[in-house]
């Protein structure tokens, strides 16, 4: 497989043409997986013997938390691509992903709080995982605010991608700092390669489908929003050229 083929999609026109074909399929698949995964989880799984029916929240909480982190990782990769190869689509994809990642962070925080109220007896605890997510939310806020504040597209892309790199390092540092600062209430990983640690099979399979649904939803939204950003950028460029003469 020739890796150079991949860069063809960095051409905005080619990107729009390709996503014209891909986007409907991804959207349909996303809706399908989400409906199946969430319905399976909501209607056809037993209650947990300790958590009762609140265990059903896992089908939203875990996938959204996963996507909150993966969205930032994707932004990190596309920012690097922008810095190294200067493809506009890459920078615009990072811009398009940020609000989606932020909403995922909010969903993870809210569902966690709603679950924590009956289970831990509190909406919020300064637990390392919870605190890290709050900090991640602040990073998303700053990143989006910087995009909005700068008028020139290229300047904004440069500044935000550097912020994304620096922010990633500090987000990681914060994660360890927070771990050191307070011991947690939060249970360990729900998903890992180590079978013993995993949640039981009845919960596991619908969870996988729900995660696939969230991933596809994220991809569909990012593609859609990137197309919007490409068009918005082209429009600004055209208007600017017209004003010049």
């Amino acid at each position: 497989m020739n890796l150079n083929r991949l860069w063809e999609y960095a051409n905005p026109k080619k990107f729009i043409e390709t996503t014209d074909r891909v986007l409907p399929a991804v959207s349909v698949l996303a809706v399908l997986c989400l409906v199946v995964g969430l319905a399976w989880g909501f209607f056809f799984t037993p209650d947990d013997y300790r958590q009762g029916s609140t265990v059903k929240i896992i089908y939203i909480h875990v996938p959204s938390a996963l996507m909150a982190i993966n969205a930032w990782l994707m932004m990190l990769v596309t920012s690097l691509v922008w810095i190294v190869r200067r493809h506009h689509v890459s920078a615009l994809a990072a811009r398009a992903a940020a609000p989606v990642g932020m909403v995922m962070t909010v969903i993870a925080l809210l569902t966690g709080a709603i679950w924590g109220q009956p289970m831990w007896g509190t909406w919020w605890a300064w637990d390392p995982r919870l605190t890290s997510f709050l900090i991640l939310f602040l990073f998303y806020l700053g990143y989006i605010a910087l995009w909005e504040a700068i008028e020139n597209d290229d300047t904004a892309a440069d500044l935000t991608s550097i912020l994304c790199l620096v922010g990633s390092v500090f987000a990681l540092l914060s994660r360890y700092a927070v771990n050191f600062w307070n011991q947690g209430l939060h249970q360990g990983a729900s998903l890992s390669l180590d079978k013993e640690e995993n949640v039981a099979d009845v919960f596991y399979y619908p969870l996988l489908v729900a995660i696939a649904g969230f991933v596809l939803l994220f991809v569909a939204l990012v593609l859609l929003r990137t197309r919007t950003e490409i068009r918005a950028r082209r429009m600004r460029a055209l208007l600017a050229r017209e004003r010049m003469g």
Partner: protein
Amino acid sequence: MMPDLGKYAETVLSAYAVSLVLIVVLVLLSLRRGHKVKAQLEAVEKKVRKNG
């Protein structure tokens, strides 16, 4: 059809409701902005073609 959620019904339902509302709002906002920008771009392109 509704499963018996026991005493945690409110918790589970509110978690699902909040999440679904947030996702739907995000999708709708993305779609609306997409349509708006597409229409604006088409208008601008038409204008530019006429002038140039």
